[in-house]
């Protein structure tokens, strides 16, 4: 059974629609990446989606959390993912970031990076950033240090031992600080922030990482309407340069940002389309939106 499904995976891998074989990859890409690149793998999204999930299944103690989920995120896209509680949205993010390993299925970043084989930190370095459903920050560090730690640089042991902040890096931190509106709390310990402030800080850390893909799990939970608007603004401005995947239950928020919406239900995709399409989808109304 198991080996069969493994084989299936292999076959599927070869037949993927965006597949480019290694020998066809243009070598130059490596040089384009720049000199201080720390990735062993380089991202190649030139031939299709930047994030690619196919037939991903995950089960916990026999409970099927993801059920043959397929999802494709294009470069620069802003995608909203909605769906009932327990539909598997967070689990999907877990799978992408390497926290949970899928039982079967393919998860690719670009065309060459098999995320199921990579460690969490490698996935992060490769360019996938994530904000958790429950804000997770470094409680004993100041806001500034939180941002500093998240900053995109060499994250090897030796480098961190001897590195000092350059003035560009400092500027960048200041900049993000301004965006998340915590400049007054710059030196405050992060665990003293309120729930909403922590949400912002985590978003800030995400920005510092400058990832190719941002996975944002319920960013506006605990925010006021106006903060919500600001978040929406921020996320839309990020799209284009980055791919952004947002999970959110707040329909107003989703409406304000989304072009494409995917609805998950019981571990697989129920509907996909523009907000209007989805909103009028009878099934979606039934399981999720209500009248």
């Amino acid at each position, binding site marked *: 059974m198991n080996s069969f499904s493994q084989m299936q995976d292999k076959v599927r891998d070869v037949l993927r629609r965006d597949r480019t074989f290694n020998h066809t990859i243009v070598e130059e890409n490596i040089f384009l990446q720049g000199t201080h690149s720390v990735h062993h793998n380089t991202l190649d999204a030139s031939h299709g989606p930047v994030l690619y999930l196919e037939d991903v299944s995950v089960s*916990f*103690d026999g409970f099927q959390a993801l059920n043959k989920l397929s999802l494709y995120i294009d470069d620069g896209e802003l995608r909203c993912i909605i769906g009932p509680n327990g539909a598997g949205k967070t689990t999907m993010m877990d799978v992408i970031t390497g*926290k949970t390993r899928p039982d079967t299925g393919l998860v690719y970043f670009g065309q060459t990076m098999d995320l199921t084989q990579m460690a969490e930190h490698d996935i992060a370095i490769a360019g996938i950033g994530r904000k*958790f459903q*429950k804000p*997770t920050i470094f409680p004993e560090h100041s806001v500034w240090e939180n941002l500093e730690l998240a900053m995109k640089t060499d994250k090897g042991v030796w480098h961190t031992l001897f590195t000092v902040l350059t003035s560009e890096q400092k500027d960048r931190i200041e900049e993000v600080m301004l965006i998340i509106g915590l400049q007054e709390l710059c030196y405050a310990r992060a665990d003293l922030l309120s729930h909403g402030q922590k949400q912002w800080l985590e978003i800030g850390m995400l920005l510092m990482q400058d990832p190719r893909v941002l996975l944002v799990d319920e960013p506006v939970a605990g925010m006021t309407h106006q903060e919500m608007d600001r978040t929406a603004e921020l996320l839309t401005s990020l799209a284009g340069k980055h791919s952004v995947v947002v999970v959110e239950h707040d329909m107003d928020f989703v409406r304000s940002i989304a072009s494409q919406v995917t609805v998950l239900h019981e571990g697989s995709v129920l509907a996909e389309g523009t907000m209007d399409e989805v909103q009028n989808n009878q099934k979606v109304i039934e399981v999720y939106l209500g009248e």
Partner: protein
Amino acid sequence: MKFISQKNNLGLHLIYIILCLIFATNVSAENNADLEKLIPQLQVKNFKKKIASVKQLAEINKPQSITILEALLDSRLYYQKADKSVVIIQKKDHKYEIFSPLDNTKIGLVEKKTIKKITTNNKLRKTIRTLLAQKKISHTELNIRQAALKEILTSSDASLLPVLQQAKKNESDESQKDLLTLAIALIEVDSKDNSIRLSAIKILGNSVFPRAKGKLEQVLLTNDQGSFIEQDKDIITASQKALKRINSKLSLFSNLETLFFGLSLGSVLLLAAIGLSITFGVMGVINMAHGELIMLGAYTTYLVQQAMPNDIGLSLIVAIPAAFIVSGLFGIAIERGVIRHLYGRPLETLLATFGISLLLQQMVRTLISAQNVPVITPSWLSGSLVFNPAFAITYNRIYIFFFALMVFALLMLILKKTSLGLQVRAVAKNRSMATAMGIKTQWVDSLTFGLGSGVAGVAGVALSQLTNVGPNLGQAYIIDSFMVVVFGGVENLWGTLVAAMTLGITNKFLEPWVGAVMSKIIVLIFLIIFIQKRPNGLFPQKGRSSGGH
């Protein structure tokens, strides 16, 4: 009455019967000349001479000679310092009643100072026992015959052959008859007649009695060149076959035995760890004083025994609730006094309880003594359950095994099925939320810690039967206890059970191969490697919340 004999029952019976005999036959004094001559010779210092006298004494075919030998065996044969006359004594309160060895008439009541024991040594006692056994091999009472035969089996010599054959003829009890056959075969292996030898070898081959193996090995001795000393081919092959048979049986039994040893070590570990699986596993208190709570339980056993010196058998039963209460109260006091202030700072509990463990140790040293204290093993806990000569398991271990399982089951019940259990687990998981749900966390904490500590105390009662009771008792078990709990998976009682048993059995199966120290080291290394595979123990906490997120 006190007996030196290990085989209490045997001793009792013998005395009883002999006393009956004495009073029934009413020995007359006149034909006691031989006895009168021999008795004083028992006082010589030299044991070789003493043994000779004892042998002569045994040859005198009178009940009184048996009485004297019994008395000597039980260290009740004394002489009076004043006139060097030999007497049999009976302790009465703080004084001694003395009887004449010739006719058992009471002579008087004396102080300890005026009399002196006639000393015996191992060899002398063994000789007496064998001599007595020979006399009783045809006794009318079955259990006396059995005991006598058992004695003879350990040291039969050729001269006994006719006695044994006679006894076999008269024997009605089947198993006794089989044993007699074996005893005879043990002698007949050395017979001159090859056919007798062959049948004897066959009989030996069917027995797992250790001496049977020894005898066969003797038959198969080789000289320096490596060839058999024994000339007869048939005998050699027969012996080899028989020996093989024995060995295969023995290895089966020794595996069984090892398994049991493992389970029993496992149950000791379980007992030691189980209280910790509550205080540490459920409550998250890294309780370094756990060992000392076990120690307090053991000391309670001692004190209970001191309080009821005449009911040692019962004392242990009384000690169980007593130890539970004592250690439990100490536990509650520790919780109220110290741990209460440290919730949410689990690592700090390690430090404070370490301090407490020092205090408790020193407290025992100061209040009781730095020395170990004697805890007596009641008779129902000593000895072993003999399945056959190659496989016996000791009672204390059996009791402890079941006792451990019982304690385990009880705790399991409390935690899983009672409201207290629910509260305990809720508090352990999320203290502030539990309060908000109206759970009296302080009360639950005290009770839980008391429960875990009380169970540690109960473990102390059991351990007092296996090892020293002294101020250091706890330290010997604390590390193992933590290993067990962690190996099983913190917060999982089943894990603790399985872990304890696994560690016990692994240890015991390794021990014959590599010795006691290495097996322990290997088990530890195994543990370290195992944890790589299962970073949260055998039975990790499941669910998404357990990932630290």
